[in-house]
């Protein structure tokens, strides 16, 4: 039968149109805006100049915030990895009938608004929040512990948002590993720990790296946890973009910062794809 090469494109056309109109075109707008100038009144003046980019790198203020964002993202990735691997491994190994229910528990946070989840930490970590209230009530402390409006609170907010992504990515990777491989390793003299270290862990690395990439990218672009749970020292790059665009109506400079962030993330994703393959992420997401 004669092949019809246009058929896949026809089927893909609604999605491609949506991606083109809702992603590619807006990103192009942002790139174009990043070369424009801003008038004191807030009007944008069409131009082609690199002043906005030069401004970003002219002093340490903006790069430092970018580096801080990367540092917080790496910390979040590390903690999510530690916290995420254990439940993922449990799901992989368990034969319990409760497994589907437990998997739903992982997904449960997605059913509640991200903003509500983030705000709820105020009632838990605040000076008059649940933890301080109990500690004060039982005289374990004399003044409330400063648990809110600092980097720890921001990272906690990020973890509760991103942990499910990490768990699902690792679990999908683990789920693809033939359990008989570890049994074979053990039958050849490996201890359980050695079998995990030599067989399971290396085979699960694609899922681990996919989870790390996803968590890293999402952390770099998020601004709600730093805004709601952070203090004066916890500015992240997305908050900076928000302030430039919303606060000062400086769309050209806000666009330039966005493009810099975008380029950074594109480089990271490109590097990842070159060495690991981007397909792992899609597998995990489709499993979720």
């Amino acid at each position, binding site marked *: 039968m004669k092949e019809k090469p246009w058929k896949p494109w026809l089927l893909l056309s609604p999605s491609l149109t949506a991606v083109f109109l809702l992603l590619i075109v807006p990103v192009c707008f942002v790139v174009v805006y990043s070369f424009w100038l801003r008038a004191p009144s807030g009007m944008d003046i069409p131009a082609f100049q690199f002043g906005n980019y030069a401004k970003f790198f002219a002093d340490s203020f903006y790069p430092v915030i970018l580096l801080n964002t990367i540092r917080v993202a790496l910390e979040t990735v590390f903690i999510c990895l530690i916290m995420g691997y254990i439940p993922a491994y449990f799901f992989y190994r368990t034969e319990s009938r409760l497994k589907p229910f437990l998997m739903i528990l992982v997904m449960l946070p997605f059913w509640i608004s991200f903003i509500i989840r983030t705000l709820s930490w105020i009632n838990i970590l605040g000076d008059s929040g649940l933890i301080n209230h109990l500690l004060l009530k039982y005289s374990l402390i004399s003044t409330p512990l400063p648990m809110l409006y600092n980097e720890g609170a921001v990272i906690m907010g990020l973890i509760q948002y991103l942990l499910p992504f990490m768990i699902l990515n690792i679990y999908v990777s683990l789920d693809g590993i033939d359990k008989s491989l570890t049994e074979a390793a053990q039958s050849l003299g490996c201890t359980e720990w050695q079998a995990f270290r030599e067989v399971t862990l290396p085979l699960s690395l694609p899922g681990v790296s996919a989870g790390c990439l996803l968590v890293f990218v999402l952390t770099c672009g998020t601004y709600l946890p730093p805004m709601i749970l952070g203090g004066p020292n916890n500015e992240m790059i997305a908050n900076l973009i928000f302030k430039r665009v*919303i606060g*000062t109506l400086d769309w050209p400079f806000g666009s330039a910062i966005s493009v810099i962030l975008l380029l950074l993330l594109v480089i990271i994703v490109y590097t990842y794809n070159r060495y690991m393959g981007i397909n792992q992420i899609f597998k995990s997401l489709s499993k979720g």
Partner: protein
Amino acid sequence: MGEDLKKRLDDVYENYRNGNITRRDFVKFAGIAGAALGLAGGPFGLINKAFASKSITCHSWGGTTSEALRKFAFDPFTKATGIEVIDAAFTGMDAFLTQVKASYPPGGEFNIAHLSAVYDYARYTDLGFGVVLDESKIPNLKNVMTKMTDTLRGITNGTLSAVPYDLGQTGIAYNTKHISKEKAEELGASLLYDKSLKGKLGSWGGDFRTNMWYAALHTGQSPNNITDVDAVWDALTEQRSMMKKYWASGSELMSLLANGEISATVAWSGRVAALQDQGHSIGYLAPDGTYSWMEYMYVLKGTDLEVAQKLLNFMLEPEAAIAVAQGQKYPPALDPTKVEMPEDVKKLPAFDPTGKLNGYLFADPAYWNKHQLEWAEKWDRIMAGA
């Protein structure tokens, strides 16, 4: 034909307001008139005019403010005229201006905005989002404090693109469990720089003006003519080290104060009054040079002016304006020498019984807008610890 029909519609509306015709007849006539006007406007005029005559959007501050507007102004207006008022909330003036700027054509998707401070009246006007209101269609404007309307007229060459609606202050809220009234009054604006409050201070992160205003007062300068701006930046940098949270919204401000997270902060007078009403131990301090502002209903370009003017006139009726003021805890723009105010309104912060607003210090729009970009960026840097 269109003008004639509109006039007749107005007459019917007035009759309806006066109880001379039933609501059923009013709606029936409005429907026929709307259809006729639509047909007269060509194939698309029908849809456009029908939509325009049926609804109008009003953006406000959300929370108690929007609730008061909805309950005491919008719902009664809809009941009286059949015109729906779509009640929307913005997160802040800057965010809303971004939305308006992003809409195409500018202002077309938005109708009326409950904006604050004269410098924003100037900003919206400078960006070309304003209109010229027909004041003869807003007879209740005569009851508004003259100083408020004159201030807006000064920016738009004697015309109005908004009607003043209420006024308020950004003063200082403090927790009376930790700070005595005497101490607060003694320190005035410097309460926000008291080292004993380290880790228990808050401020509005979203507005450089408010922070610079109180830093100017703290350093002994006039907020509308800061001669030593470095001293202001130094004061704000020093204050930052004592800051627990730069809050971003009115509800966050109320939450921080109510939960005892912070002991002192700049605060909007109406929000403090609401907290006091709820029984929280929060004091309000309005030191010399307190930051006063007026709020107004700004009509954006692209709005059906007939409907907008009708709504604004309705909102300025003493009965509606006073009820809204009681609900949102900000005094109305109505002149107390022309309209009798109830006792609870007279007790609201920023209420001026003379109606002249002498001694009230408002931000000079030309001065603040001139420095907006430079100072907003500097403020961001200070907040971020640069």
